[in-house]
């Protein structure tokens, strides 16, 4: 049986297809161009032009489809069961790692989520709710100020320059000030990565420090992972496909449904 998971994120729309609980393929699209090209509203429901997307053979559509993500409160995706984001992320993390007791840190485009899972059951979770200065968007903005790519930004963890602005946008002018002061680029990059660690630590400290699973696009940033490892006692675990974790979780939940009572 093939199932499809869709994670409608703030920066990327991600797809995951599973066949008999093996990952068949993963895809992602930038959110706004995706909605412009493939999205449509019919009778108040979001429809996706799957034919134009060419993700699967229309003659053999997936047996079940589950979606989650940003804006799912206002959008009903036709043909899909909608699940809360946190449920999708936990399912994805368990599927990808086989781990049942862990603290999950999901750093997405604008959302930062921390969840505690014990023996497969969600115990508690937190989510940033006023500011996105602890998210991937912050890294994107800062990389843009430095005129470098995210990959370059992710290379540097040594001698971080101290950045203290609580606001992501004011952080940009603070960064410009540091450039003017003459700090070398690697130190500025390290400072940005270290700032992100500082921002998520208060959320992490509320939870047990045994296994820390890191997902979301930011999990691909190796400097961030390195600095995070130094800051926490927990063993860091990054699944193979951190950015597609939510979509994979949805596909897992789609496969699980027919097995439910």
């Amino acid at each position, binding site marked *: 049986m093939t199932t499809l998971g869709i994670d409608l994120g703030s920066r990327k729309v991600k797809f995951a297809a599973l066949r008999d609980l093996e990952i068949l393929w993963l895809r992602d699209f930038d959110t706004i161009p995706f909605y412009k090209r493939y999205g449509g509203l019919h009778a108040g429901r979001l429809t996706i032009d799957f034919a134009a997307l060419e993700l699967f053979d229309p003659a053999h559509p997936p047996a079940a489809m589950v979606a989650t993500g940003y804006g799912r*409160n206002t959008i009903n995706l036709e043909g899909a069961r909608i699940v*809360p*984001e*946190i*449920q999708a992320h936990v399912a994805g993390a368990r599927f990808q790692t086989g781990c049942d007791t862990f603290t999950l840190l999901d750093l997405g485009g604008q959302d930062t989520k921390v969840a505690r899972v014990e023996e497969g*059951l969600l115990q*508690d*979770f937190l*989510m940033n709710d*006023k500011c996105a200065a602890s998210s991937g968007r912050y890294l994107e903005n800062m990389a843009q100020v430095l005129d470098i790519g995210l990959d370059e930004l992710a290379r540097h963890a040594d001698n971080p320059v101290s950045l203290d602005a609580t606001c992501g946008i004011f952080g940009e002018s603070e960064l410009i000030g540091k450039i003017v002061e003459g700090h070398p680029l690697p130190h500025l990059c390290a400072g940005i990565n270290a700032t992100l660690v500082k921002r998520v630590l208060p959320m992490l400290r509320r939870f047990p420090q045994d296994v820390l699973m890191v997902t979301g696009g930011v999990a691909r940033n190796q400097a961030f992972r390195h600095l995070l490892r130094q800051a926490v006692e927990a063993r860091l675990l990054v699944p193979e496909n951190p950015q597609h974790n939510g979509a994979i979780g949805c596909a897992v939940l789609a496969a699980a449904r027919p097995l439910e009572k």
Partner: protein
Amino acid sequence: MIGFTTTIPLEILVAAGRRPADLNNLFITAPDPQSLIEEAEVAGFPRNICGWIKGLYGTVIRHGISEVIAVTEGDCSNTQALMEVLTLHGVKTIPFAYPYDRSHESLALEIHKLARHFGVSRDQIEEARDRLDRLRRKIHEIDRLSWQENRVSGEENHLFQVCTSDMKGDLAGFEDEIDAFLAQARQRAPLAETLRLAYIGVPPIITDLYARLEEMEARVVFNETQRQFSMPYPCADIEEQYRRYTYPYDIFTRLDDIEEQIALRRIDGVIHYVQSFCFRQIEDLIVRKRLKLPVLTLEGDRPGPLDARSRIRIEGFLEMLKARKP
């Protein structure tokens, strides 16, 4: 009309024949509460100050209220500066303080000062207390119907309880409203059993929180502060009554009451509402340490419907509670 910034010994105003007005209720039920905040910001109130303080300022100015009782201790220390600004506008302000140590002596002195200001005697106060208690007992019955018999929604209970701070400024009219509601609620079929939530913290600035929770198959069956407004304990005298009233005192006194009610009312999870920029936000860490149940901390800033992000968090929280339910 005499305004006040949070629950004060209402008996004194009733005994003095003055019309009480809880400024919070006037603010949040205004057709455009957001504009009252904007008025305060235009006047120079900082952006990073609690929306209630700014709303109270806007309310006093718009209604032309000339006399305000200000609770300067036990509720919100920003009230002190609010009073100073109102004094500048010619508003007469009367301070009232709940002593942090809950000492009978200090509270008795505060109550005495307030009574003297309004020229009311002890007998008049006790007479007013009897009158008010009659209404309060009916509100307690609405509360009981909500958690014990599932015949009253979380929102209905919240609204009736929250109104006990000033009895809508009209005791007879409010009593008629309560009587009519009780007669109707008692006849209702019990609501379907859903997730049972406790709501703790100050009343929400979010206007549709209770309704949205019920849509998501969860019902608030314990309103901490609103229930406290209704003076839930029978007490021998007015000092004892306002000593047992937990809201203006330390978090541990509040938590004793919260824990007792959580057990009694078979609560599945707790929503701890905090107001943006309020000192009570700090206490969230104590709440989380003490309570054995899952706690969702929900922060509100300005009046209006529940925002999409908070809704996502609530959905995740309720999902978690459902998974935990045996």
